[in-house]
């Protein structure tokens, strides 16, 4: 039975990880077609029906290109850079819960790579490591644009980690748990009989802060200062080509997916469908594993909605200037985050007293 557990866990991990990697090609086409839609142009539509095979062509192109190493770079750190970005991006996925559990051979397995009891801390901790790839990659490129991109990235990510952490703190205080799994389980049911019992209705300000900070953490457009192509050529990855560049690209999309997964678990009820409790669903479906499949589907759909919002925002809101970016973080988001934390604590205090 021990060996069975090990095999099931390994297969589960592989499936979740490979599934998350599929985000990259899907987002490649969604982003390009989405941009085209917003900018009122056709977009890539030549390869396959509706241009659906475009990502395959893109990937083949990137894989076939020669990996060139510029002469002036610091070789070791230059080659390490992309992997330092991809490594944390892949690790973080382990903490996202995709569903309750499934049953196989009379044993229950959680639909999550690892049920870490300090899940949210794990995500924040590992997520904050992604910056090193950008920093070392940008520095090792020995190019002033890369270096400026790396410098911007470090100050930006350190600044936005604070509102992100404060929002997460409020959520932790509210749910009384560090575990993402427990947070999701609390969100079952309805609020006042009308609204789904989701975190967003209890922590609207926290969600807003988290949402804004998530864009900065993933270097997405209103805050893509580290790579702003209009100012810095391509920022920290100016000197990278072929699959090294592709790795940065993959990491960005995987980070987006994780951030979306985090928001879904913390504020949008995770695997719960609105208004329908798991027990009723189980009655309708009659099978635990069918319910698990439905839960996974729910989480995927919710994550997909967030990914679409990421694309939508990217092509709608212009880039911030660097001082505006810093002012937003330090003068607006952080005070709001502190206020939200105190407010949450006060509400809980008076709720406990009543």
């Amino acid at each position: 039975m021990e060996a069975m557990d090990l095999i099931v866990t390994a297969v589960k991990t592989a499936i979740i990880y490979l599934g998350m990697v599929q985000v990259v090609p899907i987002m490649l086409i969604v982003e390009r077609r989405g941009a085209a839609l917003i900018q009122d142009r056709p977009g890539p539509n030549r390869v396959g029906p509706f241009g659906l095979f475009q990502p395959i062509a893109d990937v083949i192109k990137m894989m076939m290109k020669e990996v060139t190493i510029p002469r002036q770079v610091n070789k070791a750190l230059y080659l390490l850079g992309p992997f330092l970005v991809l490594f944390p991006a892949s690790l973080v996925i382990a903490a996202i819960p995709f569903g309750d559990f499934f049953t196989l051979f009379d044993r229950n397995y959680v639909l999550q790579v690892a049920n870490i009891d300090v899940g949210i801390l794990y995500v924040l901790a590992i997520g904050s490591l992604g910056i090193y790839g950008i920093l070392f990659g940008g520095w090792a490129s020995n190019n002033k644009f890369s270096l400026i991109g790396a410098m911007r990235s470090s100050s930006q990510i350190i600044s936005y980690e604070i509102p992100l952490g404060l929002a997460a703190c409020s959520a932790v205080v509210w749910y009384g748990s560090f575990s993402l799994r427990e947070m999701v389980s609390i969100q079952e049911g309805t609020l006042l009989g009308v609204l789904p019992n989701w975190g967003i209705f209890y922590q609207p300000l926290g969600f807003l802060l988290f949402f804004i900070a998530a864009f900065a953490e993933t270097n997405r457009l209103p805050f893509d200062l580290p790579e702003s192509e209009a100012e810095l050529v391509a920022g920290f990855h100016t000197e990278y080509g072929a699959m090294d560049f592709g790795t940065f690209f993959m990491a960005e999309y995987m980070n987006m997916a994780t951030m979306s997964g985090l928001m879904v678990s913390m504020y949008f009820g995770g695997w719960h469908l609105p208004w329908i409790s798991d027990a009723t669903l189980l009655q309708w479906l009659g099978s635990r594993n069918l319910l698990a499949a439905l839960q996974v589907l729910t989480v995927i759909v919710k994550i997909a909605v967030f990914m679409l919002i990421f694309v939508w925002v990217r092509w709608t809101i212009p880039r911030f200037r660097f001082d505006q970016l810093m002012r937003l973080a330090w003068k607006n988001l952080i005070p709001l985050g502190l206020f939200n934390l105190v407010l949450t604590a006060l509400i809980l205090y008076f709720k406990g007293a009543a």
Partner: protein
Amino acid sequence: MRETLFMVFSLFTIAAASGVVLSRNPVYSAFSLILSFFGLSGLYLLWGSTFMAMIQILIYTGAIVVLFVFVVMLLNLQTVRENSPNLLFLVGAAAAVWLFSLMILRVLTRAIPNKAVEIPTDQLRAISKLLFTRYLWPFEVLSLFLLVMIVAIFAITRTQEIPQGGEKK
């Protein structure tokens, strides 16, 4: 199993820590520092303190070393010329080695139970309860200290005059 893993992490941590001291290039030093903090976090994890392991990565590698790397890259330092071994250098090295041998002797001669101890999981609730009851005052003083530090940093790093054409805040 746990002991072997612990040994591997220990050796890794020490190797990385010596990398910090021995590398000429401060960027490599910072990189070794990251690795050694990672090793430490692994050690905390093996001791059962998941919380501290995460805090170690979140605060040390995620924030403090980023500051180091940021400053090193901002100043774009070439390697600072180190001293050739002179008398002072030898005295310093001797002092460190002396202290090391003293401490290691103490560790080796003390009767430490050389058996596998039962690893408890950390009791986050107990810790936080203590932090907000018995140790409330130190905790509050700490927050005051942080406030003072923030003001101090602003005072230290503030450039004296606003540069020409710079935006006034």
